[in-house]
């Protein structure tokens, strides 16, 4: 029954990662000048987002969290509308009401983003239940962090998903940090997979800084969820290169650990390998940079031009 996953041009993966990086770099720059509110960026984690999202079909639904730019952009979100949202403007995906922390985009199948860490886990089974009850083909992908895995909702969610046979791919982006706490200070075990396995949920850790490995693992895992209609878990082992929130001086970070991870930057790695393999040349690489810069400039202009919400938005959208 296993169908071959579609071939994806790795240059496309590279481009998506570069777009995410470029987008977040303007968030970082803007947060320094105060033009843009501070955000949680996914710098260094782009491969995890891009690899997983590219394994999905349009029918699949995504839940994500506070560190979501990568998931949204990989899913095809418009950087202009994202930026407008972060800046609290009315053309944002959520009319400026979310800001950066809980952006959802129904049209993209990105549903129910909560910035309450662990809430993505509590909401996912219900979304999967809808898929199941309505006989929809799509599965559900729930992105969460190693920190979220420490919340009780992790236990309750995995137990229920296993018990009710819900088609969920749990993707734990284990970036070594839970805000200002290292995962070693917070988890009794090294890997979230250690916990997942105890529910009888197939679980695997993959190098989260290698987009090709993540894609392959995600294709295998989504195929398994699709066929079995049961949950699987994928842990992408990666690193949060910047602080928890912009700005953050990272004075608390172990620099040796950080340096080692920075040397494995997912974008540089992917690009260098494509060049080495002769699948990308210098001209193409430069053109890519150019293309992304102009997309970002358009996005910035769009967001800047978008007005703040009208006063009556204060109490609109509270009740249906």
């Amino acid at each position, binding site marked *: 029954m296993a169908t071959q996953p579609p071939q994806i041009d790795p240059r496309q993966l590279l481009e998506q990662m570069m777009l995410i990086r470029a987008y977040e770099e303007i968030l970082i720059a803007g947060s320094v000048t105060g033009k843009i509110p501070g955000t949680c960026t996914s710098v260094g984690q782009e491969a995890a987002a891009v690899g997983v999202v590219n394994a999905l079909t349009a029918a699949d639904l995504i839940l994500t969290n506070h560190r979501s730019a990568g998931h949204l952009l990989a899913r095809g979100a418009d950087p202009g509308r994202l930026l407008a949202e972060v800046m609290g403007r009315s053309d944002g995906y959520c009319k400026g*009401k979310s800001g950066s922390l809980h952006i959802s985009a129904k049209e993209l199948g990105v*549903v*129910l983003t909560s910035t309450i860490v662990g809430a993505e886990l*509590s*909401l996912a089974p219900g979304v999967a239940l809808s*898929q199941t009850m309505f006989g929809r083909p799509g599965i559900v992908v729930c992105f969460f962090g190693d920190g979220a895995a420490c919340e009780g909702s992790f236990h309750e969610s995995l137990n229920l998903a296993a018990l009710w046979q819900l088609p969920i791919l749990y993707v734990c982006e284990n970036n070594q940090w839970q805000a200002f706490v290292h995962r070693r200070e917070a988890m009794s075990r090294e890997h979230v997979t250690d916990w997942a396995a105890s529910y009888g949920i197939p679980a695997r850790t993959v190098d989260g800084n290698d987009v090709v490995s993540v894609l392959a693992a995600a294709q295998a895992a989504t195929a398994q969820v699709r066929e079995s209609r049961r949950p699987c878990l994928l842990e992408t082992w990666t690193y949060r290169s910047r602080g928890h929130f912009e700005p953050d001086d990272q004075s608390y970070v172990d620099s040796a650990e950080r340096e080692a991870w920075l040397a494995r930057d997912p974008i540089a790695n992917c690009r260098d390998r494509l060049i080495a393999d002769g699948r990308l040349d210098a001209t193409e690489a430069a053109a890519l940079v150019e293309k992304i810069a102009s997309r970002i400039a358009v996005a910035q202009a769009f967001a800047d031009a978008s007005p703040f919400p009208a006063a009556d938005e204060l109490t609109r959208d509270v*009740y249906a």
Partner: protein
Amino acid sequence: MPSLTLYDAVGEALGEEMRRNPGVLVFGEGVATKRHALVEEFGPLRVRNTPLSEGIIAGTAVGAAATGLRPVIDLLFAPFLCYAMDELVNSAGKLRYISGGQFAFPLVTLAMTGAGWGVGAQHNHNLEAWFVHSPGLKVVMPSNPADAKALLKTAIRDDNPVLFFLDIGLLYQPGEVPLGDQQLSLGLAAIAREGQDVTLVSYGKTVHHCLQAAHTLAEKGIAAEVIDLRSLKPLDEAAILASVTKTGRLIVVHEANRLCGVGAEIAALVAEYAFAALQAPIIRLGGPDAPVASSYPLEQAFVPQAETIAAAAQRLFSPHYA
């Protein structure tokens, strides 16, 4: 009209709404065991027992509601809502707004509340005010089986999350329930008894205590109007203000703790919008700032009783009171 308990009225409403809309489903700890007739009719996929995990029950309902289902969850006793506050308040109540209106959350949460079974403070704690305080949620608490059935049907069809509280003390008391598809708008109070001298506003079991008090007061020549709120959010502000404008006197009565309770809200409402009509202080009768004891006499003493209400009303007519 057939006579049903409030518990069975809830069962009827569930059955009718599940029949009407295949997207309605019910789950909770033991609901498939206890409402076996629903399982028989609608099958085990639409009526489910769950693990003992209130958080994931509520979270699952929120996720399901956002994507097309209309879940009803039974969280048993109100204090257990404490394990589902994030899902109910931060998710169900806020994600529509946060998403700029992209999603709706049609879900009903059932919870039993109040005195009657001597089960103590961790089973008996009236928390309805928390949810009135929290945006995006509707809150219902009926005082009789007919209202319970009609309000629950409306709540299930409502596109917003509704907290639906069942007063334990009323759960197995029978009452007449009209046949058929009766509904009741949320936000519409009932005038349980008309009167022009003093307004008694209440909900749940203390409506009956107010009616008893009104009876006593009538004998003393005081005509009390009793308002049964039925829904706490939306609140029928118009009905309350109209009544107080007529009577000039107000007593709010509930079992929940007094501080920052629904009674405070109503007193504040009236002190702002019907001030000119007020002829006497507004009296609030509610639970003390204490947990509820299991011991029977203490459990009873916690709840405002008819005598206390009647005495308070008489005080409002005393020339020395103000």
